[in-house]
């Protein structure tokens, strides 16, 4: 708990070197999932193919060219898009560059994270980048770069963050007016026992033998990226893919509704 070496951050006012957490009464709903759910039991709180309700709102960051906020129960993600702006690279690029940067706020996870970027941000950024890459018309933006900044305000499972982050980033690109082939929508799944549970929380994903994130463009019926973690037979992978596809139309509806509403309110 208290380390010998200090994590001294010169940019901030640091607390005392050695500190102890305050003592609370035993919290009742701590680790509800671990206490109540046992293997073989059905999912707690919702059906296996149900996803959590999504709150979505674009255009809430006025300084950025485009932005979007997405919230599904305990996953809260804000995304800002800047661009197209002059690329900093010294080489001539015929197509635009898409840069994705992910940042966790210190209060986003169960344990406080250091405010600097660390190794966990990079794979999430790579996955969001891959989900979006084939949807943006980069050939129309030579010498330019589009910078996407994803801030994870609350984190309830990495798969949920990647899925919600991809949705927010694609909607922010649409809000910025950047030309795309279609909106990207993403859904995550987990294999718990023999069941496929969609949109797993962090606890559910920990109890799973495999997790699965898939992103695609429902308007065109194409898939842009598939990530699988853990052990799945090929048939199970295909089942996960089909389960995610069923839900993507619903998610697309929420995003479409949010974007159209923001367009109407900005014109009026």
């Amino acid at each position: 708990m208290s380390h010998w070496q200090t994590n001294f951050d010169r940019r901030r006012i640091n607390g005392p070197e050695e500190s102890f957490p305050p003592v609370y009464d035993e919290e009742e709903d701590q680790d509800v999932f671990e206490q109540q759910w046992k293997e073989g039991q059905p999912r707690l709180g919702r059906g296996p193919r149900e996803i959590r309700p999504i709150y979505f709102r674009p255009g809430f960051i006025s300084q950025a060219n485009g932005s979007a906020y997405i919230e599904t129960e305990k996953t809260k993600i804000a995304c800002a898009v800047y661009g197209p702006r002059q690329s900093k690279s010294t080489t001539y690029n015929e197509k635009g560059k898409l840069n994705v940067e992910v940042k966790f706020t210190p209060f986003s996870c169960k344990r406080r994270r250091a405010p600097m970027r660390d190794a966990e941000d990079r794979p999430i950024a790579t996955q969001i980048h891959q989900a979006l890459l084939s949807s943006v018309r980069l050939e129309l933006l030579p010498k330019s770069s589009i910078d996407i900044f994803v801030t994870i305000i609350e984190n309830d499972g990495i798969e949920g963050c990647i899925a919600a982050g991809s949705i927010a980033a694609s909607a922010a690109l649409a809000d910025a007016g950047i030309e795309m082939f279609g909106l990207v929508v993403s859904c995550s799944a987990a294999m718990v026992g023999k069941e496929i549970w969609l949109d797993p929380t962090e606890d559910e994903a920990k109890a799973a033998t495999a997790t699965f994130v898939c992103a695609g463009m429902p308007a065109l019926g194409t898939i842009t990226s598939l990530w699988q973690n853990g052990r799945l037979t090929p048939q199970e992978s295909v089942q996960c893919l089909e389960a995610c596809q069923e839900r993507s139309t619903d998610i697309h509806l929420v995003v479409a509704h949010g974007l159209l509403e923001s367009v109407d309110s900005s014109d009026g």
Partner: protein
Amino acid sequence: MSFSTLLPGQPIPVSRGPAPQLGGGTYQRDGQIRASVVGIPQFQGSTLSITRIRPNPPAPNSVILGTVTRLSPLQANISITVVDGVPLPAGEEFSGVIRVQDVRATEKDKVKIADCFHGGDVVKGVVISLGDARSYYVTTARNDLGVIFATSEAGAAMQPVSWQEMRCPKTGKIEKRKCAKPEGM
């Protein structure tokens, strides 16, 4: 035909007949015309496009306004701040360059950059090409292109006298610039 707001990827309903020419904001895939941005499709003449008033990066033939940042005997570097009438967000300027052969249309080899631009001048130009990795190539070789605003040594805003000269209203001194022809003259 009035359209409703479309999202990227949604097909644009077009009446049967010859396929319209596609402008910005639309694309075609598998014979189906689809929207590329959020907006309402409009017909401008025979071109179908979805436009949105938003800052765009410079493209060949776009009219730009820029500020001169650096001068050398062979070129003038400018910081492009307005593209096609839409100002770029602060801090997101593009960099452009006016080469000595693109300053004016006549007597290109006798151009002296110091007699055409000074640092801090606001220049109206047209993008020729994407240029190299660092800057876009811009030209002022037209009557309506060139310096539109400049400050004299005395610190006052100068008025254009001819296409080669500007006059300071405070001191009456003439300074040489490649001036743009004011509109409506």
